[in-house]
């Protein structure tokens, strides 16, 4: 079974083809956020070299989020276009779980991928023996550390949140009994090979039977998993949304008052 993996949730742009338990090819770039200019050219040259065609794939596994909203959408729209043209389903894979999966044979007890979510938060989750122990969320690093230090197990961190918070995490764990590690460059960032492998592992049975659900789906139904609402929606929900008309009128009223 051949799976095309697509990963564009962060700075990394990555595409891969996995055939059963063999990685046939992977093209990964960690440069700048220009996925709209890197992702498809990379895919094209990888498949050309492999002598493969999108239509020969059984499914497309997509890193669905959380992550950069724009990156997620470029990955999603690319996958949706490919899947629509090739008439194959999409497998929705969590970006965090795929990051975890890269480290699944690590000696640490708990694997904790963290992605920089700005505004003082990280997108994070934690897994032990491939089972989630902390569900995926956007929260402060303090909250995450609080949760993690409820156990005394060894923890390995990975993801683009590490360079931002590494020193702080080290300091906070100094007084704790957990041993902590940080993944190195071979597996501390997103990779499409992990997305494809995880997609295949989770859904190969159902893929054969074409049993669709909310993770194995028709490409029409696929949307990224943002974990966060748009800012305007949050403001509306909290009653902060102010009508722009009222705002411009008030500005002019102030101007008129100043003239008088």
């Amino acid at each position: 079974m051949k799976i095309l993996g697509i990963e564009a949730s962060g700075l990394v742009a990555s595409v891969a083809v996995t055939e059963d338990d063999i990685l046939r090819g992977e093209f990964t770039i960690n440069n700048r956020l220009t996925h709209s200019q890197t992702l498809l050219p990379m895919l094209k040259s990888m498949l050309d070299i492999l002598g493969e065609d999108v239509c020969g794939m059984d499914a497309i596994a997509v890193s669905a989020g959380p992550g950069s909203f724009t990156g997620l959408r470029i990955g999603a729209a690319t996958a949706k276009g490919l899947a629509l043209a090739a008439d194959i389903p999409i497998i929705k894979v969590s970006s965090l779980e795929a990051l975890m999966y890269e480290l699944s044979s690590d000696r640490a007890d708990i694997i904790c991928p963290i992605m920089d979510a700005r505004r003082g938060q990280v997108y994070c989750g934690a897994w032990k023996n491939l089972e989630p122990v902390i569900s995926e969320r956007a929260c402060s690093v303090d909250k995450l550390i609080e949760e993690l230090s409820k156990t005394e197990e060894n923890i390995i961190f990975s993801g683009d949140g590490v360079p931002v918070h590494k020193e702080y995490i080290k300091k906070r764990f100094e007084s704790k009994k957990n041993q902590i590690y940080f993944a190195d460059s071979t597996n501390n960032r997103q990779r499409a090979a992990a997305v494809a492998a995880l997609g295949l592992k989770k859904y190969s049975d159902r893929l054969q039977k074409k049993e669709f659900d909310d993770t194995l789906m028709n490409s029409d139904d696929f949307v990224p998993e943002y974990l966060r609402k748009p800012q305007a929606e949050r403001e509306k929900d909290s009653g902060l949304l102010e009508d722009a008309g009222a705002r411009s009128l008030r500005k002019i009223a102030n101007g008129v008052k100043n003239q008088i």
Partner: protein
Amino acid sequence: MKEDIYILGIESSCDETAAAVVKNGREVLSNIISSQIDIHTIYGGVVPEIASRLHVQNINGVIRLALKEAKKSFEDIDAIAVTYGPGLVGALLVGVSEAKALSYALKKPLVGVHHIEGHVAANFIEHRELEPPFVCLIVSGGHTHLVIVKDYGSFEIIGRSCDDAAGEAYDKVARAVGLGYPGGPKVDKLAREGNPHAVEFPRGEVKNSPYDFTFSGLKSAVLNYINHANMTGESIDKADLCASFQNAVVESLVERTIACAKEFGFETVAMAGGVSANSGLRAAMEEACRREGFKCCYPAPGLCTDNAAMIAAAGYYEFMKGNISDEYLNAVPNLKLGER
């Protein structure tokens, strides 16, 4: 005999997710639009992040429906045309990424289309006999341009707005009057009941640029008028206000367009963009053209607002010229008219 050419058009530059199939650049076989307007109305304007999310959600369904309605399959399509600018970057990226992926997987040529060139091309759908050169007034929420369409996809800009776009002025005035979003159609409707000479608002002139437009002074005059009335407790006749505002906008648009056609010796005047659906503008332009003996063209209202049929039509002429895009095509949010 030459074979027919079918173009699949994709448009996602603002708040409409759209796909269409057009035959030979002129005949619309399908034109599907998934409008988000109800959602953005809650916020009083387009929220880019929400628009982008909805594009991703709806795009495949819209494309599938466009093919189904045209009774065509991907195999029948000769090229895929997509808007790559100008517009909201996050929104554009969805259509561009989707179109590139389709083009690559289907092994069909990709054609990047300028959104405004699409608006102009809507006239080729509406008026099958229309051919360049002609003068075209492009008026929308983001653009106010007076251009000479020299050839398909070839423009000379004669005038432009140096501040607000005409549609933007409509939206701002509508909000101030309390009509809400989108402002254009609402102001237009109310203006029909009012006296266009009730309030004499200023017609903006741009020094030394007879064909350029300015609407910020007019907009401020309207807002000041409302504010003054509010402060002194006078009541405002909203219909009169809208009619007077619209009259000022329409007059400056029509005057410059006709003067341009006269000076450069064209007898065909076209209009394009969302504001060209405005009934006041249409009536005034028709009347002015009739007086001068010019031919007046504009698309049906459904083709004035954002749609993918116009993108397919513009894409057809680019395709025929051999202007094909590659897999590096990117969204260009501030793409200028005439740029590639």
